[in-house]
């Protein structure tokens, strides 16, 4: 491969009972770029994303084969500490998932769990992350109110900030703008683009235009199969596989 990577997926297959959700997927994810995984709904995008931080483990009847390496460590090795893997990856869900606590505690949740108990230090982290998310001015007077009282757009930015507070290496976005209005979506997209200077970003989406706006690297998933992947401009301009072409022109959705 001609780009640096520290997240490698090798021959990953996932099945739920009899249903094969992912078939032999191999993908190297480029560092400090936005990799967008596109594909029609039900193609296994979310499954792929959740296999990366082992959230699939808790699903009943799931079988996972293959390897995923983060920094050359196989995350499915039984000796690996799963909280450690998850801490490395911040997840942004489809709908903003604010924890049932205050704005402040939402951001402080991760750091607290990982051992930061000093109140001053936590305050610094909270302010830093909220400022970085451009939320500080909007919420600085409401830090101790329930986070559920923020607008949906603010909630999603809060969730992103919360994910960054545990200092991850990789950011996973599972259709992160699907519940947002167009303007909030733009803010979140903009934020993701800013973040790629420091983080490796993987975003799953079924909105093609979003892919065009933010993707550096593109992977097309169809019926659990990784059909095609490559630099975004290349794939968008000259898709090699007929299925990718059909999807990009809107024939399959």
């Amino acid at each position, binding site marked *: 491969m001609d780009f640096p990577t520290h997240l490698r997926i090798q021959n990953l297959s996932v099945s739920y009972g009899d249903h094969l959700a992912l078939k032999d997927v191999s993908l190297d994810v480029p560092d400090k770029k936005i990799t967008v995984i596109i594909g029609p709904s039900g193609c296994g995008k979310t499954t792929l994303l959740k296999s990366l931080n082992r959230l699939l483990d808790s699903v009943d009847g799931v079988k996972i084969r293959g390897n995923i390496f983060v920094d050359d460590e196989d995350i499915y090795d039984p000796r690996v*500490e799963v*909280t*450690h893997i998850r801490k490395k990856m911040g997840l942004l869900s489809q709908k903003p998932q604010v924890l049932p606590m205050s704005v402040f505690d939402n951001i402080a949740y991760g750091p607290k*769990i990982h*051992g930061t108990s000093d109140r001053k230090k936590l305050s610094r982290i909270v302010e830093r992350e909220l400022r970085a998310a451009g939320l500080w001015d909007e919420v600085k007077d409401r830090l101790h109110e329930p986070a559920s009282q923020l607008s949906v757009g603010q909630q999603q930015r809060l969730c992103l900030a919360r994910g960054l507070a545990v200092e991850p290496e990789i950011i996973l976005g599972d259709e992160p703008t699907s519940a947002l209005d167009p303007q909030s979506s733009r803010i979140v997209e903009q934020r993701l683009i800013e973040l790629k200077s420091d983080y490796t970003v993987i975003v799953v989406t079924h909105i093609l235009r979003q892919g065009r706006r933010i993707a550096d690297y593109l992977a097309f998933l169809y019926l659990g199969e990784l059909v095609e992947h490559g630099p975004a401009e290349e794939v968008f301009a000259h898709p090699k596989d007929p299925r990718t072409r059909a999807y990009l022109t809107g024939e399959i959705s």
Partner: protein
Amino acid sequence: MTLNKRKTEERIFKFLMMASTVIVTGSLLVIIGTIVVKSLPALRLTMLTQTPKGGYYLGKEGGILNAIVGSLYLASGATLLAVLVSLPIVLYLNLYTKKASALATFTRFSLDVLWGIPSIVYGAFGFIVMMTLGLRASLLAGIFIVGLLELPIMARAMDEVIRLIPQALIDASYSLGATKLETALKVIVKQSLPGILTAVLIAFGRGIGDAASVIFTAGFTDSIPTSLLQPAATLPLAIFYQLGSPLLEVQQRAYASAAILTLIILAISLISRVLIKKFTRHTIR
């Protein structure tokens, strides 16, 4: 906290959770086990086939046929009464009223309230009604009160299943020209039959096992009732009175009676499980 401490905390709590689950499930096994083992010395076929000889309190011979039959009469009558009242209510709530209408909200709320009222209060209420009407403790009075006791249990359980019927199915019936009544009987009742039957069985189980509501209302007797106006013995009360006897043999008969009642409850629960399995194959999901 270090990762090790966090993991230890989780391990401790997981142990406590498993221990709790063992306590909960284990208590059922221990209860049934104890009752069965203790009942063995007194458990004879005559328990099932004879009425008490020498009085339920001191008699060591005979059986509890009076209580078994009494309980079956009482619970069957009460369950029938409860079905006749609760099924129309539930159909009316789901078919004729809007979900948020005042009547529906108030009725569901009343059912919730009734559901929470202890059976001894039903008994006391039954006693007042009987006094007012000049009735004596009888099978009829027992059926009436236990029927009311079963009403909220049955209605709530039925409401839960009937609420799940897709509106599209109801609309489809209307669009074929069926009236609401026809839709109610032919579509809704048929579609949710297993759920309805389960509700009936649950209520029957509660009815046959309840003692506090029948103390005042059904009375107790050593013979099998031949009319609705005679008092009737019931299994729970038979157990209660036998246990109060100073004679060891009679106390053992209480254990045996408890085992019989438990077996009846187990059988009801088993039947309802089988019913659900069997019927759900024929309903549209």
